[in-house]
């Protein structure tokens, strides 16, 4: 199935979790190889707490937003 992480498309096995998606994206994008504490996630515009990454199963066309601290006004 297809998912996206920060707008970039990935192919991933059916029934994969958020944790598996992050591992997948690590092979493509070094920016996600940071420690877990340095980013937070929304799935289809819904907040997902860190402790739910392993058990949150993804569906086809799911969109993950992976956000990190940035300057702001």
């Amino acid at each position, binding site marked *: 199935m297809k998912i996206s992480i920060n707008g970039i498309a990935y192919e991933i096995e059916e029934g994969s979790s958020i944790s598996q998606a992050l591992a997948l994206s690590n092979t493509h994008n070094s920016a996600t190889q940071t420690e877990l504490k340095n980013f937070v996630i929304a799935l289809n515009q819904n907040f997902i707490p860190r402790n739910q990454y392993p058990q949150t199963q993804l569906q086809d066309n799911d969109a993950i937003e992976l956000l990190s601290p*940035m*300057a702001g006004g």
Partner: protein
Amino acid sequence: MPTDWINTDIESTDIESNDSLKIYDQTFNSRLLVGTALYPSPDIMARAIKASGSDMVTLSLRRQDPSNNQGQAIWQHIQQSGCALLPNTAGCHSAQEAVTLAEMSREMFNTDFIKLEVIGDDYNLQPDPFETVKAAEILINKGFKVLPYCTDDLVLCQRLLEVGCQVLMPWGSPIGTGKGLMNPYNLQAIRQRFPTTSLIIDAGIGKPSQAMAAMEMGYDGILLNTAIAKAHEPITMAQAFAQAVNGGRQAYLAGLMESRQTASPSTPLLGTPFWQQT
């Protein structure tokens, strides 16, 4: 020399030392809150924050950009500053987006404070009053301490208080314009209508004199970013704003004189020399 003058000075100092900015259940020594964006470098940002004397800084969450390591450097400097964190929901255009970003911010920054920002129009970045109230109510029910960025509309402010906001942050003028207090009448009305609510002017302040004017009006604090970050000398400008905010606050506490339409001599008339008399 009359000693009562000296006593007056001591009393004034006591008033100032007990004077702090209340944001929900916390108090802050500085009444100046500063943003962390647009500085020439993370190092200048850190030094400007220190020069401002601020106890609370705003920041945001954004997509990771592998080509830009400055985000991590800024984050490290902010953590080292020791300031309280006020994450924002900048860029959100709906209540749902703002709520999601607030929840992500709470996990990332470990704070219930959130600067709620829901934009209704991209031309002047004017907050959407309807979505802002909706998001504020949801977030307060989720345990957030919401600091809503809002327009200077009295009824909107009333609605935000009704859903549980304890701090209001009306704009001086649109974000990044530096136009100062666009509508002093409205801002004064909000101050007078809600005398015990912590009111912070957020956005549009371009000069220290504008920040001072808001503080003289009785506003409790100033939140700004661009005016410091885009100054030729951000660190010096941070100091200038700190002094202006303190000066405005002192003036408000001291009590401004009533303005008058007609002139009134300040030098006593009694004993005026004969050549002044007609």
